[in-house]
Structure formats: structure tokens, C-alpha cells
């Protein structure tokens, strides 16, 4: 990290004037987003400062139990947020918790056993954060898709039920489409890596002075782990949540 260019507070303050552009644009175009923008900026600063201090502390605190607790805390929060996107889904929090935890644990375990990363807070926590938040976003998309499909594809499901099919074969098309929806942003972003965008993590490493050929190794690893986590989490969430759309008599319930 010899080429790292530390940012001083005055540079950061000048950079914060960039927020004004967003505010002026919102006011000029009557988007009524000024309050939202201000709240989001204040929250981002407070949260990042807090997390900065927490990470400083955590990285120095090399107890694996503490690292595990922090990962669990992240998983709980991600599950809570993902469940809010699937209000029509029964036990949405439990399903999200299981899906995100399974996705994160399998991916982290492979990374650790392959020697790609160590179970050290400064490696596991940032990587855990990336995969957990990616799984959370994937689940939000899955839930939105599955709810809207059970509403718009009612005829298809009821036709299959009326032929004597169980709820799984009657819903399989919807389940598959919802899993795809959850995974597509990760797949699309992998397709365009390096062509359309230099991902945040790789950019960060390069800015911090890591040689680009070294930085891409990390990015390749991150891309694979994102795919693995979103596929595991989307698969588990969709296969567990489709049952919420049926009652005990295997009838499709009304969705508002």
C-alpha cells in the first residue's frame, strides 16, 4: 500500500460540497428528495464513522468468537431487512435468516478452507459484509418477484392445481423465475466487470496502492463468492417461501 494517498479532513469537507449538486438538482427538478438526501448523507457519515471506530476496535480484538458474533449480528440485520421486502411471506424473517446464513457460511467456509482468506477479523468481516449484503439484496428481489408472480400468474397455478398437481409442480415456473431474478444482477455485473465498471473493492485496493494485477485476484474471488452466496440464498428463500401462497388445503390464497 505504498502508493496510498491519505485523505485529510479538509479535502473530505470540500468533497462533501458534492452533495450540494444533488440537493440543487432535486430542488430545481422539484423531485422533493432534499430531505431524503440530507437524512441519507447524515446517516452515511454517522454510520461510517461509527463502523470505522468499531472496525478499528474489532480488528485489534482477535477473538474468533467476537468475529463470529459480529457476523451473526450482520446476518440478523440483513435477514430483518430482506424480510421487510416479503411481507406476504409467512415466517419471512426465519426464511431470510436461514437463506442468508447458509449462503454466507458455505461461501466463507470454502474461502477459508481453500486458504483464500483467513478467519481473521480484518478479512472475514469486510468479506462477510459484502456477501451478506449481496444476499440481502438478492432476497429482496426474489420476494418481490415471487409475490408479484403469484398474483399475476394465478391462472397458470390454478390450472396446474386443477389437474391434480401438488403445490410444488404448480409453482415451479414461478420459483425458477424468482431465483433467476435474485441472481441476475450479480451475473450481469460479473459479465461487465472491467468493461463497464471497475468494482468498488478493486478500485479501493488500487486507490490504496495495490498493483492492479494483485487487485484483480481479489476481485475474481469476490465475484465468485457473490455468485455462490446469491445462488444459495435465492434458492433456499424461494423454495421455502412459495408455500406461503397456499393454505392447508393447497389452494392459492388471495394476494392484495
Amino acid at each position: 500500500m505504498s502508493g496510498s494517498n491519505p485523505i485529510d479532513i479538509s479535502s473530505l469537507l470540500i468533497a462533501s460540497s458534492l452533495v450540494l449538486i444533488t440537493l440543487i438538482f432535486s430542488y430545481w427538478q422539484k423531485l422533493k428528495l432534499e430531505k431524503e438526501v440530507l437524512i441519507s448523507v447524515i446517516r452515511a457519515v454517522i454510520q461510517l464513522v461509527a463502523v470505522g471506530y468499531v472496525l478499528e476496535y474489532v480488528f485489534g480484538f482477535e477473538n474468533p468468537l467476537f468475529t463470529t458474533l459480529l457476523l451473526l449480528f450482520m446476518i440478523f440485520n440483513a435477514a430483518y431487512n430482506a424480510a421487510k421486502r416479503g411481507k406476504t411471506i409467512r415466517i419471512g424473517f426465519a426464511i431470510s435468516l436461514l437463506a442468508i446464513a447458509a449462503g454466507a457460511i458455505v461461501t466463507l467456509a470454502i474461502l477459508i478452507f481453500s486458504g483464500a482468506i483467513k478467519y481473521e477479523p480484518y478479512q472475514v468481516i469486510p468479506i462477510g459484509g459484502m456477501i451478506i449484503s449481496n444476499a440481502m439484496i438478492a432476497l429482496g428481489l426474489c420476494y418481490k418477484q415471487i409475490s408479484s408472480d403469484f398474483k399475476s400468474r394465478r391462472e397458470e397455478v390454478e390450472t396446474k392445481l386443477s389437474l391434480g398437481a401438488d403445490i410444488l409442480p404448480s409453482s415451479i415456473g414461478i420459483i425458477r423465475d424468482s431465483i433467476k431474478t435474485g441472481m441476475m444482477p450479480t451475473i450481469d455485473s460479473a459479465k461487465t466487470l472491467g468493461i463497464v465498471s471497475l468494482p468498488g473493492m478493486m478500485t479501493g485496493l488500487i486507490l490504496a496502492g495495490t498493483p492492479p494485477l494483485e487487485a484483480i485476484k481479489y476481485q475474481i474471488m469476490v465475484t465468485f463468492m457473490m455468485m455462490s452466496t446469491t445462488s444459495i440464498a435465492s434458492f433456499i428463500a424461494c423454495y421455502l417461501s412459495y408455500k406461503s401462497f397456499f393454505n392447508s388445503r393447497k389452494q392459492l390464497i388471495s394476494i392484495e
Partner: protein
Amino acid sequence: MSLIEFQNVSFVDGDKAILKNISVNIEKGDFISIVGPSGGGKSTFLKLCSHLISPTNGNVVFKGKNYTEYSPMELRKSIAYCFQTPYLFGDTVLENINFPFSIRNEKLDQERVIDIFSMFHMSIDYLDKNTQNLSGGEKQRIALIRSLLFMPEVLLLDEVTSALDAENAKIVENVIASLNGEGVTVLWITHNLEQSRKYANKLLTIEAGEVKSLEVLK
């Protein structure tokens, strides 16, 4: 003993009463035409018969046992339901024809498929056709074939000939009449007055959620 019995059945959707305290007996071998104004509750009556919905109050009984005592899949395999707007899934007709076999973990019975296609005066070449390229009438006949691959005890039909031309409607009517002759109980919603009396032995009139009359024709 009745084959299907509605015992004081009501169905409420939200705050709207669709069916109000209906009691009807359907005997084995009946061919019942169901008539009445649109929105009167006829399709809801068939959906209750097929157990796609359950009554808000009252019981629906099949062969002396409440519907709730059967597995829903077992009931729906015995009571086939053809919707007013046929829905064909997948890309090809073959996927639709294979579905009833696959849910029973059986291989496609080619002999049966050829037989039933010929009953509907359709060529077996339809199996490879894309469902998107079929006319409304063709879709309806494929949907009927799909429901009849395994002979049901009861056949529920919701205006299935409304999208067919006169010639094809006649073919479908003949198939249904012949199935009824073989003992299949038929409940058929129709707006065609001539059709409603031609084959049926009973005429059930449902109006504003109530049974207006159950007339014995033959």
C-alpha cells in the same frame, strides 16, 4: 347417495357474498347445465366443486365424505375442471399433454394420447406446436384433452365452447356427451340456451348467489 352434495354452502369474497346458503345434490351420471346471469356465482360454484376454494360456511361432500377428508390432489384428479379461458403453459403442446402423466410419475401413454386427439378430430402433429401459435379454439381443445387424459369421475366445464366455431363446438359437445354416456358426471356452465337443454338431464339456474331452480329435463 349423491356424488357431490352442497350443504348450505356460502362463499364470501372480502365483504361480498358470492354464494348464499346453497344446497344442491349432484347424482352420479348427471349432466347438469348451469345457467344464469354473469356474476351470479356460477364459476364460484364450479371452483368450490374443484376444491380450488373452500366454502366460507357449509360443507361440500363427495361420495358421502366431506371434501376436507380427502387429499386436495386426490379430489382434483377425480374432478377435472376446464376454465373459461384456457391456459396452456410451457412452450409446446407436448409439455401440456405430458404434465398430467408427470404429476402421476407415469410415462406418456402414446396410445391414449393418439386416441384422445382423434376424439377431438385433432392430429397428433399438434404435440410439437408452439402454444403461442394456436387459436383460441385450438387452445380450448388442447386444454380439454389435457383434463381428460386420465378419465375423471366429474367434469366441470366453464363455457368451454364459447371460443369455438360451430363445427368445433359440435365436436366438443359430442365428446362430452359420449363421456357422460360412459358414466362421467358433467357440470357445464353455458350461455347457449339450445346447448343447455340438448344434452343435460338437469338445468341448474344460479342467480345473485342463490339457486333459483333445479329443473329435471329428462
